[in-house]
């Protein structure tokens, strides 16, 4: 059972209370972009075996979207953080680096 802490209401919720929203920090490509960029934005996913940044919603709780940094190979949760941000904050990167010294953000 996956357990995440909602950064808004502070509730420690198990996954039945949450809705998974897929890969986080996708850069949106809209009108004027190339076909490749638009295809990448819509469909291509990193799908890594290891550190993954995700969107989650506290669906059966406060209802808010937030971000999580998780390891897909061990199910370890590194951090959860605000949705109002376009890339993982420095302290989240540091928390991951502390546990995965070999990992580096792209």
């Amino acid at each position, binding site marked *: *059972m*996956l357990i995440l802490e909602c950064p808004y209401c502070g509730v420690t919720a198990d*996954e*039945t209370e949450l*809705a*998974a929203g*897929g*890969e986080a920090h996708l850069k949106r490509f809209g009108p004027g972009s190339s*076909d*490749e960029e638009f*295809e*990448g934005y*819509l*469909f*291509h*996913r*990193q*799908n*890594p*075996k290891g550190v*993954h940044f*995700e969107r989650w919603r506290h669906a059966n709780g406060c209802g808010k979207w937030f971000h999580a940094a*998780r390891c*897909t*190979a*061990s*199910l370890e949760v590194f951090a959860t953080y605000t949705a109002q941000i376009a890339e993982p904050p420095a302290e989240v990167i540091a928390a991951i680096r502390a546990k995965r010294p070999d990992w580096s953000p792209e």
Partner: protein
Amino acid sequence: MRRYSAFAIAREAARYHQGWERAWAAPEPKKHYDVIIVGAGGHGLATAFYLGKNFGITNVAVIEKGWLGGGNTGRNTTIIRSNYLQDPSAAIYEKARSLYETMSQDLNYNVMFSPRGVIMLAQTHHEVRGYQRTAHANALQGVKTEFISPQRVKELVPIIHLDGPRFPVLGGLWQDRGGTARHDAVAWGYARACSDMGMDILQKTEVTGVTSEGGKVTGVETTRGFIGCTKLGMVVAGHCGVLAEKAGFRLPVESVALQALVSEPIKPCMDVVVMANTVHGYMSQSDKGEMVIGGGTDAYNNYTQRGSFHHIEETVRALIETFPMISRLKMLRQWGGIVDVTGDRSPILSKTPIEGIFVNCGWGTGGFKAIPGSGWGFAELVAKGQSPLTDAFGLNRFREGRFIDESVAAGVAH
């Protein structure tokens, strides 16, 4: 290869079973192969088999990081059917189903194909309309299916409860030549036939890198050193994104856990396969008597081959309404596999941005049934650069918006 037969059993019985030869060899890797297939699951092995059988290409290695058939091929609930909605799906799944009919003879290996019939229950009005539509589509595609009444469902499945309060049975989509097969045997049978053709199956060998020069593949780095190749087929299911990353491109695929469970063995009580897609549950009885039960996928990316308990609970809770007698059954085992899911719930059999690299993935929750058809088509794609069975399943369909949408009916696609 010494053929298996009733005579062989008698011969070996007479000499205390000392004379059975190994089913496949354990060779050292060569320096170079015409074709390397990564992944010795059903799809990889079937591809190698048809490369040899249909195209005479036998300088082939199948590279497997674990043991052959140890991925999803050895973890699935073995439902075989071809009652899909879209024409390209019907073509490849029905090709596969028809090849299953003669697979034991073709491979001289008993894969225990059991065309006992598959019912997909319609438990909402939406599903009734959906499955009637599928039955009409199947009629046009030449796939034999039929929409049947609740009474007919009850005749076929005496243990079913038709008037459940939450999930009444309103009818069903029936495919009488669908069924099950022994999953390991499919992998083992192909492996034995490939080895017999002189192909190398390299187990416990992980591909750790893909090398290319000037946009063209040259070989793979492995835990047993570099191995060169002219063409490369990536057939690694849940790990396709990891391997594609090593080759330098991305795929429209996400890897998630799908679980199954089996009960203690009981006397024969159900001789067809029943799928209840509204509640994400399906069930069949194995030859040993166990009830084999599968459910839905977890919603988040996962490579651990473990799923969440609440999914099992949901599946079983819903199935108990439709099959009250299973409420007292003890469950023996539960496990998970990492399935490779695409947006339109259809597979990818395609060229890639790198010349000589081909990818066969995205079978997600429902690729066991497709193994022979996929191998047939993908071998043709690898050998000739094009195949009528795989044309529609190219990577370019995402960019061009030509989805093969099979995600109807809740997206459970076994």
